């Protein structure tokens, strides 16, 4: 980080200081999107203090504007840049920029969803958006981290605001319990991660990821490196809800307010994967054959995660809990794609297929959560019984949910299939046929619970009589919102090239 000289009177100290200031000055210009987010956070807090509670929900527009602005800045300024910033603390490469846009997209949809969520109606929402943007900022740092310190800061900056967000509806017992479990579990996981990273720092002598990478690649068989990395992995696995650090997910997803569940399920997971990819790329890429222990470990984790997620989802009655286990399973599929990290394939490298799948996953999961919010707003029910007969009560909503479920299964011509196909291809190309077979079996198992939701929507008798006025559910704006996401899912699934052309050119730079 800061080069240190021999003594205080050493002239090279002044030079070192000069150099580091120069580095910072150059980097600030490129750091504008994050600055926009930071400015928005401060603005939101101030405005929230000034506005009366009833009107604080309009601060959504400020948050949305910040998100869109940051997105535009990234698109125009940073899409072709590949360089480290701030003396190697962060790196901006095409992979980071792509993930930033994905995160912003997810955040924008969640912000819009929070605007209409029933349980947020009589609350002060300014600080909600501020905290969400703070978490988003942390995700940005996670996606472009190039230094062990940034790993720590990023993970914590994401986690701590999200602890608060989960408990935002603080009088709700479910949210409270979820929040407690989340904060205790999450702090433990990040503590273990920080300890592991400290061991890595000790082994390497530097916090810069490039130095750490050189060291690990040279010592892939070392026991200490393995232990340190496993401990670090605990933190990453917590963020992506991989087995065996997935226990928090069902409870937290179920108890938290649904927009926050969506935020955790999509944005937090994307950031977690970004961080994991950076770490793995540093540790494994370019090592070739000797990295197979690591890749085998990832494969085993992937297989376990998929299987546990799918098997546990089979008998869930609560929709949010079912989606929680489903997202655990999808984390498993993405881990399966990660065994291709370091592969020489041009379009199916590990980070590329995961990046593609994150786009597909974003649309289908957020779509499913939009439908969940719509049903909850109209019926107040989160369990499967609220979805009975949805095919007749709100055909458009049921149809949208069907498409999202089909995409989650992975049937063509949806985005889920395009993504899953690439994950399988990456695994097979890297020689992990057994893993692909397990993935296939899991896909077949997952059909059962996704189809069960479809069956409930179309085949079951609705809880309300057809003649009663409450029969028809008019989801108004949310219906069209879901429709737009359906169009996105189908578009990505049919015109795969639209996204694949971009992911084809994603590279990871370790500076």
């Amino acid at each position, binding site marked *: *980080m*800061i*080069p*240190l000289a*021999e003594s205080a009177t050493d002239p090279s100290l002044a030079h070192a200081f000069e150099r580091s200031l120069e580095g910072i000055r150059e980097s600030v210009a490129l750091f504008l999107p994050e600055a926009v987010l930071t400015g928005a956070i401060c603005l939101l807090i101030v405005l929230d203090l000034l506005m009366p509670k009833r009107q604080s929900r309009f601060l959504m527009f400020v948050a949305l504007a910040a998100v869109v602005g940051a997105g535009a800045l990234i698109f125009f300024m940073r899409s072709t840049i590949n360089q480290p910033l701030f003396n190697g603390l962060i790196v901006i490469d095409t992979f980071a920029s792509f993930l930033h846009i994905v995160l912003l997209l997810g955040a924008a949809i969640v912000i819009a969803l929070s605007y209409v969520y029933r349980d947020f109606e009589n609350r002060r929402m300014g600080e909600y958006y501020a905290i969400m943007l703070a978490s988003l900022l942390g995700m940005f740092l996670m996606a472009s981290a190039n230094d*062990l*310190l940034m790993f*720590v*800061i990023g993970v*914590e900056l994401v*986690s*701590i605001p999200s*602890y*608060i967000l989960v*408990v935002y509806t*603080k*009088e709700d*017992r*479910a949210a*409270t*319990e*979820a*929040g*407690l*479990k989340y*904060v*205790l579990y999450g*702090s*433990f996981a990040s*503590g*273990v991660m*920080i*300890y592991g*990273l*400290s*061991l890595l*720092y*000790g082994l390497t*002598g*530097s*916090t810069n990821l490039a130095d750490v990478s050189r060291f690990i690649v040279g010592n892939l068989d070392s026991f200490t490196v393995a232990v340190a990395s496993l401990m670090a992995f605990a933190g990453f696995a917590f963020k992506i809800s991989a087995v065996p650090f997935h226990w928090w997910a*069902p*409870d937290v997803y*179920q*108890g938290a307010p649904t927009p926050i569940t969506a935020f955790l399920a999509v944005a937090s997971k994307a950031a977690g994967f970004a961080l994991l990819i950076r770490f793995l790329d540093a540790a494994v890429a370019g090592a070739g054959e000797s990295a197979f222990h690591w890749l085998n470990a990832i494969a085993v984790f992937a297989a376990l995660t998929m299987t546990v997620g799918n098997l546990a989802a089979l008998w*869930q*009655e*609560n929709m949010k*809990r079912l989606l929680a286990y489903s997202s655990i399973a999808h984390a498993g599929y993405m881990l399966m794609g990660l065994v291709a990290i370091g592969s020489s394939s041009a379009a199916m490298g590990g980070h590329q297929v995961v990046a593609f799948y994150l786009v597909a996953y974003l649309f289908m999961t957020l779509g499913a959560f939009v439908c969940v919010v719509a049903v909850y707003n109209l019926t107040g029910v989160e369990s499967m019984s609220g979805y009975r007969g949805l095919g007749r009560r709100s055909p458009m909503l049921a149809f949208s949910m069907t498409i999202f479920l089909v995409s989650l299964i992975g049937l063509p011509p949806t985005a889920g299939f395009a993504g899953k196909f690439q994950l399988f291809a990456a695994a097979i190309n890297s020689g992990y046929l057994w893993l692909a077979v397990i993935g296939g079996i899991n896909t077949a198992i997952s059909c059962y619970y996704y189809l069960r939701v479809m069956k409930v929507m179309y085949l079951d008798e609705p809880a309300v009589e057809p003649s009663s006025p409450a029969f028809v559910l008019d989801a108004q704006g949310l219906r069209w919102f879901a429709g737009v996401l359906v169009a996105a899912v189908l578009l990505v699934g049919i015109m795969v090239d639209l996204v694949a052309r971009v992911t084809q050119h994603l590279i990871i730079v370790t500076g």
Partner: protein
Amino acid sequence: MPEDIGLAHYLIVSALIFGIGSAAIIVRRNAIAVLMGIELILNAAALNFVAFSRYSTYGKLDGHIVALFVIVIAAAEAAVALAIVLNFFNNFSSVNVDDGSELRQ
């Protein structure tokens, strides 16, 4: 005597603290006690960072800087966690972690 205290001693101490903290988290049922365990773990990590940085041959102070950040982060985390525990107490009238089990299906 001070010359005999080397890197290994610090590492062993921090490992012990880590162990005690983990044990506290796993064994104790009181949420505050779990938080104490978490603090112990974070401090063990910070100690590690400082120790490695102090005995490093590279002449850089990276570990010290990370340790500063870890301390700040630990404080923020503790504040938020305590607020959440307080909220839990308001709803459940207890700080026992096992008392929150309504979500399990």
